[in-house]
């Protein structure tokens, strides 16, 4: 009985449509873009036509040609290759930051929501501290004191981001706490650990995944913004934000050097937004 019901729900979810295609064309485009970006970033060492820092001083600021598909920058470096390597760095930092945020914030949220009482109060007042200041400002303050560098960048972003997950997970736990299936599981003598793993986590997972896919975009924007003001990824390491700053003085002569990195950031964030929308609709279709 239980199995047949579950498989029915499962079947319904799938017959509602495949996440990739059945939605509107904008979603399909966004997700396809995202796939291309993620794959080309991961496979940059294999796919990139040139090394990211290989200079070709004979062809500086070249317009797109067959040799350089997106043209070259002021040092004759291949823009496409740099974009791909930059994507690797941004995506890796974003993944690290979000995993850590989820791990730390999620655990705090789970504990606070699950135990309630003074534990909850203590955890949440602590979290309030991090929520009482805009994330970007906090990240900057931390970078300003800890100093530059990839490690500090990841650390600063994690400290700024984890509080949101603590809050999200806690509110999810609280909303589940008095639901009948949880009470039933308790009445049947399920241990806390069992209930947490079998009932809470699966129910929370959906919301968290949607939020994660949305936040990848925000973290990537933050990394690019920080690098743009010279406080994130440092040159000569390729990064979308730093590529934009480098291109700024040449905007007039070689607009393509400004357009390309911007489009890369835009497509990535756009892709993650559509992904998160698609996931949300898929997991919890409205009406």
């Amino acid at each position, binding site marked *: 009985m239980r199995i047949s019901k579950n498989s029915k729900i499962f079947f319904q979810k799938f017959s509602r449509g495949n996440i990739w295609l059945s939605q509107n064309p*904008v979603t399909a485009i966004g997700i396809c873009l995202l796939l291309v970006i993620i794959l080309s970033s991961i496979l940059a060492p294999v796919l990139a036509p040139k090394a990211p820092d290989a200079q070709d001083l004979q062809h500086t600021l070249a317009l797109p040609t067959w040799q350089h598909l997106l043209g070259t920058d002021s040092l004759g470096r291949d823009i496409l290759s740099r974009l791909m390597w930059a994507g690797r760095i941004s995506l890796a930092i974003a993944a690290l930051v979000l995993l850590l945020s989820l791990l730390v914030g999620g655990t705090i949220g789970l504990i606070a929501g699950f135990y309630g009482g003074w534990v909850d109060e203590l955890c949440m007042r602590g979290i309030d*501290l991090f929520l*009482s*200041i805009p994330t*970007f400002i906090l990240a900057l303050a931390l970078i*300003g004191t800890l100093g530059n560098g990839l490690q500090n960048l990841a650390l600063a972003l994690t400290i700024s981001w984890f509080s949101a997950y603590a809050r999200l997970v806690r509110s999810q736990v609280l909303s589940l706490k008095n639901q009948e299936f949880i009470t039933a599981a308790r009445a049947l003598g399920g241990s806390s650990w069992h209930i947490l793993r079998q009932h809470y986590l699966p129910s929370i997972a959906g919301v968290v995944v949607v939020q994660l896919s949305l936040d990848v975009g925000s973290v990537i924007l933050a990394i*690019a913004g920080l690098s743009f003001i010279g406080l994130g990824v440092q040159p000569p390491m390729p990064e979308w934000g730093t590529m934009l700053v480098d291109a700024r003085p040449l*905007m007039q002569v070689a607009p393509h050097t*400004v357009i390309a990195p911007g489009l890369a950031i835009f497509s990535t964030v756009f892709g993650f937004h559509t992904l998160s929308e698609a996931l949300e609709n898929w997991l919890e279709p409205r009406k």
Partner: protein
Amino acid sequence: MIKFLLRRFLGGLGVLLMTSFLSFTLIYLAPGEPAEVILVQRLGRIPTTAETNRLAAEYGFDRPPLIQYLDWTSHALRGDFGNSLRSGAPVLEELRPRIIPTLLLAGATTLFTILFGIPIGLLAVLQEKGFGDKFSRFFSLVGVSIPDFWLAFVLILIFSVYLRWLPTHGLENPQDLILPVISLGVANVARLSRLVRSQLLDTKYQDYLRTARAKGLPEWLVWFRHALPNGLIPLVTLAVNQFSAIVSGSVVIETLFALPGIGQFYVTAVRYNDIPVIQATVLLISTTFIVINLFTDLAYKLIDPRLRESQHYENL
């Protein structure tokens, strides 16, 4: 109501106390002893132990942390955040002239956001499942995805470089704010229009609107007198997010357009590891944040009578 006020006020005060503690701790997060950090900044080289000890005694870094914190807070309360490590001038004096440009930018952006965000969201609801809805949803998706600094570049390229209509940087005339405000505002418009849409879609099928139509009110009056005021009340709480987004964005945008505001000042401080300035700015921003939070809660309560009631019963 008074109980509610008092509780929120005390809560805000508590958070403020914690943020002041956080700002104070920043100097301890820096690698090395605080006195060393300051001396490296000032001398440009690694200081000798004697120099470090002398400065530590002068600044009181040799006292227990709690005493230092109390001392720092009591000075901060009187507006004394110490001197900037970079320029040597009192932090507050440097900070003060920066407030107006940032307020101008933030105010104009907020206005821009409301002016465009609400109509675009409204358009989606009026033409539900039609062109307006599609446009509005697409716009909000694109708007939140565009990096503001890149949008600024594109705008500069079009309006400053090619058309030569607007300046690329500085803040001398009112029109100098146009490009910064648009760059900063588009993402906010996108977010607001999306929320307006979802909020009004919920409102659209409420009974009181049917009643209003049934008693023969023209459609525009139904919207302006009934749907909008009721449907948009919850958006008051957005003020906090709005503030957060604008402050964060203004850091980058002010740097990009060379606007002499707090954001630009803050970035310079972060670049030079100018910790007293960072401390003061963080405290200033979080205080504003907390105050806005408080006022929003209050405004929400005051505007929405249902909440006033429920809170009333809750407190009994």
